[in-house]
């Protein structure tokens, strides 16, 4: 019997008041900022976090995302908190019309400041639903950075791994049960996927879901499936990912990206329900999570709201 759960992939669009506030101080993931400005921003972020957590609770999802409202992109937020990175100019984010600031590795990567932990605690305090936290995947962090320090990428990925393990352990201490690791670059099939993700997994009892998107997961699926608890698949843009579901043994937890974060057309509830019923016939996972295919900040706010509501309604059918 498979449990059917619901969530979203996190990374909410910023509400207008938060955008305006950040605009007024001229950018966020900067190295220096006055203490009082920081405090003021934290108030605004708290307000926005409250709002997105309320949305997810109201929609009756099963897991709740912290929201990642402070993150400018998947890399900038962690990279400004990790010693050894310097931020550089904008580069196109995969095959999208979005851009991210490139982190340059200038020195040995070491955890410097806290990140994620405080935000997660705040989210736990206001949500009735269990919080899912998001971390950048090790291969994506390395792939989208420019390495000017390490001779071997093996050493770079090892240091990144250590930082992630530190975060995972701290999150486990907070009582977090599920972490979503966004690792889109993993679909480029790097060396060492098995080793790195096994090391992450070995250090913890919580559920790690490796979220894949922007690429076909077929080439890395088996390797990943051998070692991790959970895998997320984009089932909107990659027809081939449906073949995985039909033909392969699926992981304990399967995150189904059935809602498209890259289109404002809101999915029809009945259609998604049929898709899920269909999937349940050929998979052997303990748990499936009906979700978005990728981060929500590709959507305008009102459409994001509507999609969350619909995900909740689909969940009620199971």
């Amino acid at each position, binding site marked *: 019997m498979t449990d059917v759960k619901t969530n979203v992939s996190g990374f909410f*669009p*910023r509400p207008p008041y938060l955008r305006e506030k950040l605009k007024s101080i001229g950018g*966020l993931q900067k190295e220096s900022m006055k203490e009082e400005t920081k405090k003021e921003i934290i108030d605004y972020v708290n307000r926005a976090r409250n709002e997105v957590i309320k949305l997810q609770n109201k929609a009756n999802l099963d897991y709740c995302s912290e929201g990642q409202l402070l993150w400018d992109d998947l890399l900038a937020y962690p990279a400004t908190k990790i010693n050894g990175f310097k931020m550089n100019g904008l580069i196109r984010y995969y095959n999208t019309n979005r851009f991210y*600031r490139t982190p340059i590795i200038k020195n040995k990567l070491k955890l410097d400041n806290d990140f994620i932990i405080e935000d997660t605690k705040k989210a736990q305090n206001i949500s009735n639903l269990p919080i899912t936290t998001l971390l950048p995947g090790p291969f994506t962090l390395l792939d989208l950075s420019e390495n000017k320090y390490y001779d071997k990428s093996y050493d770079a990925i090892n240091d990144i791994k250590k930082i992630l393990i530190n975060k995972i352990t701290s999150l486990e201490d907070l009582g977090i049960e599920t972490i979503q690791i966004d690792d889109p670059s993993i679909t480029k099939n790097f060396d060492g996927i098995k080793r790195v993700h096994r090391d992450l997994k070995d250090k913890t009892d919580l559920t790690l879901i490796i979220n894949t998107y922007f690429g076909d997961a077929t080439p890395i699926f088996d390797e990943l499936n051998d070692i991790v608890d959970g895998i997320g698949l984009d089932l909107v843009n990659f027809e081939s990912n449906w073949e995985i579901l039909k033909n392969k043994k699926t992981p304990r937890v399967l995150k189904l990206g059935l809602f498209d974060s*890259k*289109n404002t057309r809101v999915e029809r509830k009945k259609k998604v329900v049929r898709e899920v019923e269909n999937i349940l016939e050929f998979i052997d996972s303990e748990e499936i999570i009906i979700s978005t295919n990728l981060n929500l*900040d590709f959507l*305008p*706010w*009102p459409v994001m709201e509507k999609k969350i509501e619909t995900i909740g309604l689909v969940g009620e059918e199971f």
Partner: protein
Amino acid sequence: MIDTLFPTTVIGSYPKPKWLNRVRELNKEDKFSDKKLKEAEDDAAKIIINEQERAGLDVFNDGEMRREEMVEFFADKIPGYRFYGPVRVWGNNYFNKPSVVEELRAPDPMLVDEFEFNRKFASKDKIIKVPITGPYTIAEWSFNEVYDTKKELIFRLAEIINEEIKRLEDAGARCIQIDEPALSTRPEEVELVGNAIDETVEGVNVDKTILHACYGKFSEIYPEILDFDVDQFALEFANNNFKYIDALKEYEFTKELGLGCVDVHKSSVESVKTIKENIRRGLEVVNPESLWINPDCGLKLLPKSSSFKKLKNMVKAAQELREENI
């Protein structure tokens, strides 16, 4: 169309006066009427036309004073589009990405009034360039809820823009520039873009059709773009240090080249000498008769004073080269 060597021009946008932005904000807040906004736009357009004349340009426009964003402006006028709200482009920068929510219908004229106004207020010996966003870029920067494929949306947009260009032609426009910044972002779609551009200029008989692109690896779409049915390519070079000029030399460049010889991402003003050197790089690709001189891209993000000085130096560089017989 123009009998001078090295015609000087702009790509389109120019920094807006702060008061115009303020009036626009107040209009959005319903504190200023549409009529007053129009008046402010008219005033701004006259000022910028005058400023570009004083810089000595041969071909220009009103610096797009009536336009805020190159996709939003058109989507707002085409029935079938809807705006749900801003979407992140990077960091804290969001833009009003439009959604196609119904089959697109023919819009009322979108640029004819703008053109007629500019024509009226610019000196008669000057040529007005009309920039219009191309179908590929509009489609690429839209959400598509309706058409089965992106291709269908692109070709519907191509029809709509073609219609608009014909209206402009009827109104007397002689120089049309299609802006396709998304052109080189997906080199694998260059043929699709080409077909869409051909459709966009189908039956158009203005003196000059120009295709503008920036931010791209031109080497990956060259020489394919030479098949596009336009007279000229206005491309970015200064910002990337003429990185792609060698690639363009590999095949005979059979069109005119609009050479981006001034960087629009740096406010420091290039000297006349530097710009002359840049222009000479363009002459490695085409003969002097086929070379137009322009900045890399629109100037709207620069401080106003740098924009003016950059244009002035650019005009002077072209002038000196003409006198020196290159």
